[in-house]
């Protein structure tokens, strides 16, 4: 179902002129109220009036995560604190967290975008939404929560962790929609089976998964193990939180990004040059309705491409292909660019191999080494050594053929790779720890 028919199916020309108007208003706002933007525009020799068309956007400087850190905590806010009703922050794994503030209208728009997202995923009033995204500074929990209330569903604010309780509540409360990270979804299914509960027998119908990269093969596995439709959702706290874009259940192919609120561009991560529709590169987003902390040409570091074709669902908003990695998650191994997600989809294509894997990167003298650990499950296990060695050779040669990097493959016992209850730790890079 389409939540906001008027805006979600707006003809492209009308959408473009709405975008330009809102972009110009946003530029005026940040130029007047955020010293960082005024200085960076002046340095680039432009004023808000220099931007007369959407094509002119290329002239605008990028905003980096680093800029948010340097203006910690409130330096990039474009509204005074007495208008900010909510503050979130990203986990600060490398230094200070990045802080975002929302005005009352921002919160309303966010709920609207999450309502659109839930509707696109096939959720509606009457659904019991089991929200296992973390509540707190992280945007996931509250973001999904407000959208679930907006569509009139019954939301269970589970938050993350306490897996046994999650399973009990899912079963007893009759959850029909599950929101959580894709790796936690599989973890939950395994844990349920250990309790003797097959989630396929429960009323659960749809899973909405995001906050970490996943693959098409992982979707197949989730859909099969839980008996649900698994929908990819995209968001990042700097821009909004969850609900920046989502797949529609009709196509399950590419995430519609709400273009009446955001302008997406794809750039070459090296040169910063804008790439034409269809080419893969780094996603850059400009927010055009946000009041609390509008961001101009924010470099998301997510790698994707714009799918230029019209979608069967009738929405006119552009689709982004499933994120295929992050430009800063990219591992450079002996000069070769490797995304963990590439290895994941390769493993899934080899019959029987589940995506429980971990990449160990280290340095031996001056040479980078890559070791891929893969858990042996019943489907791939054989009592003959040569079959298992053949499997490990096949993984090794596929990685060599497709990614161009030599690695060692090690088959390990099930559940020896740590499953986090939130994001899965797929990479251990020991190169800088000596």
């Amino acid at each position, binding site marked *: 179902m389409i939540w906001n028919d008027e805006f979600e199916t707006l003809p492209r020309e009308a959408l473009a002129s709405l975008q330009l108007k809102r972009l110009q208003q946003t530029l005026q706002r940040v130029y007047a109220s955020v010293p960082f933007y005024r200085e960076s525009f002046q340095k680039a020799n432009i004023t808000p009036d220099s931007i007369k068309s959407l094509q002119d956007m290329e002239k605008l400087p990028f905003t980096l995560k680093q800029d948010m850190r340097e203006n910690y905590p409130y330096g990039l806010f474009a509204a005074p604190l007495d208008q900010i009703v909510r503050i979130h922050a990203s986990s600060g794994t490398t230094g200070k967290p990045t802080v975002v503030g929302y005005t009352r209208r921002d919160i309303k728009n966010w709920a609207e975008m999450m309502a659109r997202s839930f509707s696109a995923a096939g959720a509606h009033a009457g659904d019991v939404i089991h929200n296992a995204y973390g509540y707190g500074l992280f945007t996931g929990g509250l973001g999904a929560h407000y959208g679930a209330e907006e569509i009139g569903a019954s939301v269970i604010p589970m938050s993350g962790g306490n897996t046994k309780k999650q399973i009990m509540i899912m079963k007893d409360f009759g959850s029909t929609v599950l929101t959580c990270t894709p790796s936690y979804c599989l973890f939950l299914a395994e844990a349920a089976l250990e309790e003797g509960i097959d989630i396929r027998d429960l009323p659960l119908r749809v899973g909405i998964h995001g906050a970490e990269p996943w693959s098409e093969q992982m979707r197949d596995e989730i859909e099969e193990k839980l008996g649900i439709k698994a929908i990819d959702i995209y968001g990042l706290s700097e821009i909004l939180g969850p609900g920046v874009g989502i797949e529609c259940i009709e196509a399950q192919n590419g995430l519609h990004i709400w273009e009446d609120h955001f302008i997406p561009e794809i750039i070459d991560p090296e040169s910063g040059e804008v790439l034409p529709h269809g080419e893969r590169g780094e996603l850059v987003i400009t927010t055009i309705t946000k009041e609390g902390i509008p961001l101009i040409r924010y470099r998301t570091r997510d790698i994707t491409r714009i799918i230029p074709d019209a979608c069967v669902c009738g929405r006119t908003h552009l689709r982004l292909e499933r994120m295929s990695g992050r430009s800063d998650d990219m591992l450079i191994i002996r000069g070769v660019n490797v995304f963990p997600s590439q290895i994941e989809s390769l493993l899934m294509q080899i019959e029987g191999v589940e995506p429980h894997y971990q990449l160990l990167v280290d340095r031996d003298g001056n040479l980078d080494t890559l070791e891929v650990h893969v858990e042996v499950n019943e489907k791939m296990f054989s009592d003959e050594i040569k079959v298992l060695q053949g499997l490990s050779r096949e993984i090794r040669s596929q990685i060599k053929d497709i990614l161009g990097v030599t690695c060692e493959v090690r088959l390990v*016992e099930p559940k020896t790779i740590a499953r986090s209850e939130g994001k899965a730790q797929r990479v251990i890079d020991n190169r800088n720890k000596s």
Partner: protein
Amino acid sequence: MKVEQISIFIENKSGRLAEVTRILGDAGVNIRALSLADTSDFGILRLIVDQTDKAKDVIKAEGFTVSKTEVVAVEVPDRPKGLSGILDVLDAGKVNVEYMYAFVERCGENAVIIFRFDNTEEAIKVLLDNGINVLKGERVCQM
């Protein structure tokens, strides 16, 4: 004519083998014969036990990867050329041996060897046609 064997995937690190045998011991399962195939990274422990299904369940419940395979227990004369005579018969019948290991107990005057063939049915036929005694599964587990 076939014997059920369980195979367990074990990483090549200290304590894993002890862990498996402890789990089986706690469950009251008795090991009748075993073989360990190993590589530098991992090994496969193959077992014939007195309670196959129970053994498989308790090992699996502890998080190991386990499978059940059908193998053949063959009586082998306990004298020089006893084994080679049987392998000649199999070779002539175009049956391949994937692996084999010896059983601890004897069966009367004869030794017992566990075989895993590429084609189990065909192997049993070849052995029987040549008058070689193949032991029944229930018997082997209780020996």
